[in-house]
């Protein structure tokens, strides 16, 4: 007579344990998936940021400004002088 509640108790205990372990492991997997997802997003933001930084630097570089300037006028260096030492 006493056996029946005891077995029921054991049975429910096992069910709770199994359920909890399923929940716990799926929680770890979910959390890790979230971390992976966030890492991928962070990485892509970093690369986007890098690309924008590159574009900004290229567009504001002196070599770019020089290449797009309509007039490039350097003063002739050679002086018609016969200087010595």
């Amino acid at each position, binding site marked *: 007579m006493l056996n029946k509640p005891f077995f029921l108790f054991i049975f429910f205990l096992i069910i709770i344990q199994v359920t909890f372990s399923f929940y716990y492991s799926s929680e770890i997997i979910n959390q890790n998936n979230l971390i992976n997802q966030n890492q991928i997003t962070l990485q892509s933001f970093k690369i986007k940021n890098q690309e924008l930084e590159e574009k900004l630097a290229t567009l504001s570089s002196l070599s770019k400004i020089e290449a797009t300037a309509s007039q490039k006028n350097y003063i002739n260096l050679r002086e018609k*002088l016969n200087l010595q030492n």
Partner: protein
Amino acid sequence: MSHSRSKILSIALIFCFSVVSFRFFYWQVIKAPELKEKAKNQTYKLEKILSERGKIYSSDNFPLVLNQTTYQLSLYKPNFKEDFDQILNKIEQAYPNFKTENSEPVDKFKNNSNQKWITFNSTFNEDQKNLLNIPGIEFQKIEKRFYPENSMAKDIIGTIGRDSSGTQIGYGGIEAFYQKQLQGKTGFIWGPQDATGKTILNKKSWSSDAVNGRNIFTNINRSVQFYVEKLLQKGINEFSADSGSITIIEPKTGAVLAMASLTATSSATPSSIRNPAISDLFEPGSIFKPLIVSMALDTKSINTNYICTKCNQPHVIGKYNISNWDSEFHADSSLQDIIKNSDNIGMSYIIAKLGLDSFLNYYQKLGLTQKTGIDLQGEAKPTVKTEWPEIDLATASFGQGIVVTQIGMLQAFNVIANDGILVKPKVVNYFTEDDKIIKNKNQKEIQVFNQQTINDIKSILKYSVENGVVSKIKPENIEVCAKSGTAQVAISGSYENNSSTIASYIGFSPCYNPKFTMIVTINNPKTSPWGSSTAAPIWYELASKLNDLL
């Protein structure tokens, strides 16, 4: 009979059970630690988190070096789910001109059924990579350096490569000198991995974060560097020279504002690992004369009223005759005129009055016997003679028979600009690490000449510029204290009449409280060998620009 059978069966069962129990005990208890370790090694992995290499900026906070992430594309035939031409068209849509750029390897790969795998040299950006999520296409991440100003300041920056372990490592310039600060620290994650090989973070896993490299903020003035490179290239071409170098520093701090070395054939030196401004030794020639006069004035071996009474003829030392570059003699030259006329005879008498011991003492104080300690990799150490016969001391007075690097000569001459105080040249101003500013340490300053000496030599240099041959090319609106020099290049220890020359011009502006000290050296100019006709026009052209820029 049946009783004995069941007995045997029982004994057999007990025996089997005992054997199985023993094996369980063996594996689960005795071998447990070893198996546990093996299991861990199979399921746990150590993952590297790479740090980002520090960036390099100019003094206006403009990035001279950035990091760039690109991807290299590979194709793997067995994974193809569609026709090769269809895949190729999709790649072409994402990366125009891919087929043209890679026509040869593409055709080879297409027609060779035995070739399963190919990697192309074309690099893809993040967006292009995301468009090509197709079976059979793989991407490999590549971290590179990106230079927004192209080859500008290449000699200063240096370059990077990879060591045997695949780690990025700097070669030459800042990249090598500040390798430790730039590289940062690699991070690690240790934990179990899932079926796809990704690390699962749980209570047992541990990690240490990666620390990115420090960003470097240099003293390089981008606009000045730009003009220096443009005008140096133009000068080299116009004067048909082999190569040339220019370095500009801030007199008070030694901050390097610009440094460039170019050759006649390219807009950059052949290798950014070697920087001629710090690694090439040369005989300075007449640009060394103001330093000798300063030494003589400082030791009171002569005073400003000095007159060279023997300058009307060559100075004979043993079997050698010391003459002037133009074979002319300037009788009764004053100290000012000795510098103005670049009089070798007068200088040889001044150094004789100074004496060898005093000369060597100042030579060492001016930092000419050792490296300047500039924060760039590859600086050469000047060689110093151990024996000084009288003729060698005499020729040293006009900068022949001694060797210096361009940066060493500039450091020494800057002592005159900086009121007699020697400061070390410095490329890097400060570092940043997580928005924290770390100042680059200052070197100690050394007083070489007293103030009276400085006042005297400055007025001599100013007189020389305003009354000498360069007065015709000096812009009127700037005050300059400078000296030209032309040194013959020794071939096998002797100077031939037709040997090549190194033409140079060194000075600062304005004479009092100067904004910059600059040296220009032109190697083997063919239109004219003289420093005043080649290096000086470049110097003055730049000085006019610097007047506006600084």
